[in-house]
């Protein structure tokens, strides 16, 4: 691909780039990988917590995107589609391993959850970190993924709904319930300490 072509491709939206790959030049697929690799890697890693297997799943995600590129509707957004494929691969992987989603080391989530609370400074003391991580991991599985997508990946409710294939209102309900559970448990924890 020459330099001019590359420059033109940089200006394309994801959806336009997908159309370009399937109709004009398959080599342009590397641009899709460049745009999404880090985001998808981080998302899968947040779900499965294993760096080596994350690499394999990331590769598989991009292979699945490529093989199914003709099923993508360019009138829709590309981002939820790629996240959906990554999500499905991760969930299948976790099922095979008989393990659960682990939200350890997700400081983004904790920061955003408690940013408006008077508990904010308390939560970031080292000894409390163990507690909050434990609480996050004890949440029902169905609450964990919306939390990750909302607070770590910064997806809108609409995008989360498309990725997880659940109604938008349900996304909101899951996130609110998870927040309530966490805040309630943390308050009980601090009240006991006092």
């Amino acid at each position, binding site marked *: 691909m020459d330099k001019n072509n590359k420059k033109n491709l940089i200006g394309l939206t994801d959806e336009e780039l997908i159309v370009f790959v399937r109709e004009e030049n398959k080599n342009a697929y*590397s641009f899709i990988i460049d745009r999404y690799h880090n985001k998808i*890697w981080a998302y899968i890693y947040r779900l499965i917590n294993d760096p080596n297997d994350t*690499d394999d799943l990331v*590769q598989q995600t991009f292979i699945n995107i490529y*093989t199914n590129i003709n099923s993508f509707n360019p009138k829709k957004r590309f981002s939820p589609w790629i996240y959906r494929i990554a999500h499905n691969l991760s969930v299948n992987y976790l099922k095979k391993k008989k393990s659960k989603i682990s939200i350890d080391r997700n400081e983004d989530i904790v920061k955003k959850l408690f940013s408006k609370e008077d508990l904010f400074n308390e939560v970031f003391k080292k000894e409390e970190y163990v507690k909050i991580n434990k609480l996050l991991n004890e949440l029902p599985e169905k609450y964990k993924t919306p939390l990750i997508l909302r607070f770590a990946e910064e997806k809108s409710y609409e995008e989360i709904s498309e990725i997880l294939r659940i109604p938008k209102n349900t996304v909101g309900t899951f996130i609110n319930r998870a927040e309530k559970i966490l805040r309630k448990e943390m308050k009980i924890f601090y009240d006991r300490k006092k």
Partner: protein
Amino acid sequence: MIEKNKKKVIEKIESGEVKIKSRWFFLARKLGLQSGLALSVILLIIIVNAFFYYIKTNNLLSELHYGPSLWQEVLHFFPYDLVLIGVILILIINFLVRKFEFHYWKPFIIMFLLSALLIIILASILLVFDFNERISGFLEDCGFRVPFMSDFYIQRCGQIPQ
């Protein structure tokens, strides 16, 4: 990391190990799903309508007023096979609907209730417009046995001793 993963993916694409699936594959899949869904819904409407017809022609609802022995009779003559076919069709419809993108737009329970209501209304319309009488007449005149249907319309509907 990105270079390693990118290299592996691109290598597989360039070697031909990974290929883009044809548009026809997805089109055929979509058409198959849509026609399968339409066919299952039509069959379910006919089954619900046949259930209503069976209840109506055998007076099963009026029998319910006449005490416990008739309850047993009603249970004995209840069209379990229709219910079983209906349940199987609902499971198939549920499976097919989940393959479409629209299934998560509205809460499942609302979609389920609306669909159930629509199917009952359409089945009742068939009942009112003598759909079953026409089928029954056709089966009696045609001179050959249609599996399940001949038995159902000729032998079972309106044949329970009152």
